[in-house]
């Protein structure tokens, strides 16, 4: 029974924009758990405790943004003289994350232990 339930949950809730990889799920988890507040890349890396890499986090965030699961806002950092992007989940982002949470809870997402 438990195996059947796990198999059912381990099936991706949807394809394409609704598909999440383990690291993408981790990013969504950190953002949702932050109470929907905006976070920037470095903050996500720090809070992931080494699970996310500084070099790849922006590629993943960019992909999630393209899927419409996150939205970004640009903030100017005066000391760096450059713009920094702040991210927060969108309404579809919350939906997809909730759907995938069940999969992650039964270990259907490889490498996700949040």
């Amino acid at each position, binding site marked *: 029974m438990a195996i059947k339930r796990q198999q059912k949950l381990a099936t991706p809730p949807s394809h394409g924009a609704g598909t999440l990889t383990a690291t993408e799920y981790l990013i969504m988890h950190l953002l949702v758990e932050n109470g929907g507040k905006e976070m920037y890349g470095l903050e996500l890396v720090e809070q992931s405790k080494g699970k996310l890499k500084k070099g790849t986090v*922006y590629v993943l965030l960019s992909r999630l943004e393209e899927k419409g699961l996150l939205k970004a806002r640009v903030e100017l950092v005066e000391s760096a003289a450059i713009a920094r992007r702040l991210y927060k989940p969108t309404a579809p982002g919350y939906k997809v994350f909730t759907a995938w949470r069940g999969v992650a809870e039964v270990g259907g997402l490889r490498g996700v232990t949040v």
Partner: protein
Amino acid sequence: MAAKPKPKTHEINSYDEKDAAATVLAAGLAISEPQARDLVDAILRDSAGNKDVKATLQRSLDDLRDLLAKIPVPATRRRMIRAATFRVTVRHSRVWRFLFSPPGSPMLAIARLIYSEEKLEKIFLPLVSDYRLEYESAARESRLKAALTRLAYWWRFLEACRLDKVYSLLQMLKTLRDLFF
């Protein structure tokens, strides 16, 4: 009959300020040291030449004479002048400037060549922003930490490029699959 010991090529009997100037000139003009030494002699000898060049060279020779007086061994003199020349040359070369100053600009320059403006904005500008902030705090602590931060961010830049290429490839395969199957 005992074999005659070969003279060691790196051993030199004398290394004066003119030789030191020749070492510096050779590095700057990309010529051999003997050629540079001839050039030094020619400039000093030629009274009809450019007087400013001659005066500058004379001042440099005076400085070098004072410096070399502190180093008694000719081989050590040459080694130290060569090392110093190498450092100055590398530091002022285009490659060095491109790679190491200011933080993040070379990465953005490379990314601009390869990627679209959208990707630059979404991936590389935030990466460089983090880099500059981290570099600033590292530079306040020590030069070594700042240098390590530079290296680490170059690695992260390559990681970002690699992952993006992997995703682009997967996207292309998916498009092809949708088209044909």
